[in-house]
């Protein structure tokens, strides 16, 4: 798996700690509506806070709170990296 540091990518590939902005949500897993209701909206900032022991699920920070979701769902969320992480 390649980890992007700039440009557009999907949420599952976003490095821990980098700030990004949502650019699109794809509804393959049927969760887009719920995710939007919970604050994952196009244009909003999002950040990956950490990754669970086996690399899945991931914990993201959105609208100031923490949400965990699987990478299969995160893969459907397109983001644009704004501020690459300095730590990882």
């Amino acid at each position: 798996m390649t980890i992007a540091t700039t440009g557009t990518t999907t949420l599952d590939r976003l490095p821990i700690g980098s700030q990004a902005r949502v650019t699109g949500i794809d509804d393959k897993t049927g969760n887009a509506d719920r995710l939007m209701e919970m604050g994952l909206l196009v244009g909003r900032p999002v950040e990956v806070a950490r990754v669970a022991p086996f690399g899945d699920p991931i914990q993201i920070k959105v609208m100031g709170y923490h949400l965990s979701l699987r990478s299969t769902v995160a893969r459907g969320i397109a983001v644009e990296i704004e501020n690459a992480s300095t730590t990882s």
Partner: protein
Amino acid sequence: MIVHSREPLSAQNTQTIALVGNPNSGKTSLFNRLTGQRRKVANYPGVTVDRHVGAVTRDPNTQLIDLPGCYSLVSRSLDEQLARDVLFGWIRNEQTPDGVIVVVDASNLERNLFLATQVIDLGLPTIVACNMIDVVRDRRDQLDTHKLAQQLGVPVIGTDARTGEGLDELHNAIRALDSPTTKAMGHPAKRTPFDKPAQSAFQEMSNVVTSRNLATPSMTDGIARILIAPDSVSDDGDTWNKLSPDDKHAIITARNAIETPVASLVCQRYDTIATIVSAVHIKNSDGRPTATDRIDRVLTHRFWGLTISSTIMGAMFLAVFSGAAPLMDGVEFVVSQLATAARSLLGTGVFADLVVNGVIAGVGNVVVFVPQIAILFFIIAFLEDSGYMARVAFVMDRIMSATGLHGRSFIPLLSSFACAVPAIMAARTIDSRRDRLTTIMVAPLMSCSARLPVYIVIISAVFAGNVWLEAGILFTMYALGLVTALMIAAVLKRTILKGPPATFILELPPYRRPRFTIVCRETWDRTKPFLTQAGTVILAFSVILWALAYYPRANNTSPDNIDTTAQLRQSYIGRLGQTIEPVIKPLGFDWKIGVGLASSFAAREVFVATMGVVHGVGEDADETSVPLREKLLNDKWPDGRRVLTPLVGVSLMVFYVFACQCMSTLAIVKRETNGWRWPTFMFCYMTTLAYVASFVVYQGGQALGLG
């Protein structure tokens, strides 16, 4: 699907106010404060899954309904549906509430206002409680509740449900809801504005709502705004809901016809909210990592995360053993003193035997385990109130995914360590029906607190001496239940409950320092039923079992020289036991254990009471003071071999891990699945599993020369 608990809503002269809000926003904490009740509070989303009704202490004419949390009125799981149906007035034979208190987590204002504005749109008289106001203050942020009230058009009160701050204002607001002046003024709330296409979509849905008579006129528009979302109403569902299949069909048809711009609706609502938040909320907190971030860095660490959660579990079982030992010695001492006192007071005879060998040996031997159970509950309550439960779900999700379930199911499974009944209800939070059923089906495999006395009496009889070994074996039994639950879940998800892979979306709340009083209260509230059970079911069973063991009296011996073994053999219970002995002998059990197993179908801990009674009847005073575990060790087969060898002990515990010996569990499964099909299946598979596993352990062990 589920018939919700029928707590009466009293009719006249009372106003009913519903508490709604996002999960974990503090609804139940506020409810408890206002009504004086003690409903369960814990720091993870999805604690409340049923509704609870209570009168406001300071205002007995006002009734509150505590509801499950939801992120949106577009509900996706049963608990969310229940909350929606109460608000919409869709519960059978019930009206819409007279008012609503939206409990908002002020430290997470933006997301919480999503639901709050949806509720305000409904047009019911509404109060917004900005709870967790202390968290906002601690962060040095500022929240202007007056301005927020202006923006929303409803009263807004800052509260801290933990300390009771803001409760006076909340009471005043509740009273004002009912006052004639407020009613005459009408509802000044501001509905969320939407663009033209959205409004015409709402209008079309409103027409359906009106023509099918699904809402009062004032609520029609608000309800239509929810119903146009594709997830809002589905075909399957619940039985509390008064919508007919035709109603649902009409909604779904209309929805399909309207090109619903759901994304745009969500965005428009959040745009309005963003404007409001920027006007009322001043954020001074910098981006520095919070305490929760720092704790999570360790507890959900890639490597340490799992190590830590296993260590916590291990420590829990060690604590149950080592921490409870002195307490247990104390209780045991009291029980034996009681028996001696009763003996000397009552002398000999039938009545004395009933008291000493029936009541005290039965109930006493169960009460001995109260300390262990309390310690277990204390630790679970501590973890639940800290916020760790959601982290366990997060860390375990990957492992759960191998079974086809997701991490969310792990929370009910964990609470099943205490009791399967609330765990089965907690499965309501799982949005997929198949996943929910799978979770329900395997939850009773987790070792509940009623099994604990059985394990401990066996372990402390046959493996006595080494606390590490004892705790290790106990841990193994719990692990066996858990691993089997996961395996059965995997089988169910691949066969009869096959379905698309579940999605896992879970909010991780901030850690909070568990409050000692809450944790103690929770411990007591859960331990109490165990004591009640000891005083009722177990007492009754002890007396019945005693009588069955005492009668008929052997007539070939003189009254003062009764051969207790012979007496027991020819008593009613002895005869019954010997009838079933051939069935259980392959598992290594003698007829006394068999009687214990049979009586466990009333409640598992009755096993211990039965052993106490069966081994006690007809004995003299000196022997009654011997603890039960020693009596068990002294039990012999007719040919002189010991009955309870370590191998038999393990076989017996394995039986208890798997066997479905709980009427309340079967009853709740029937209620939650709406029929006898699933409980029957559960009973059959678990009992078969118990027999086969025990058989394999015992026969295998003997073949290996372990017996």
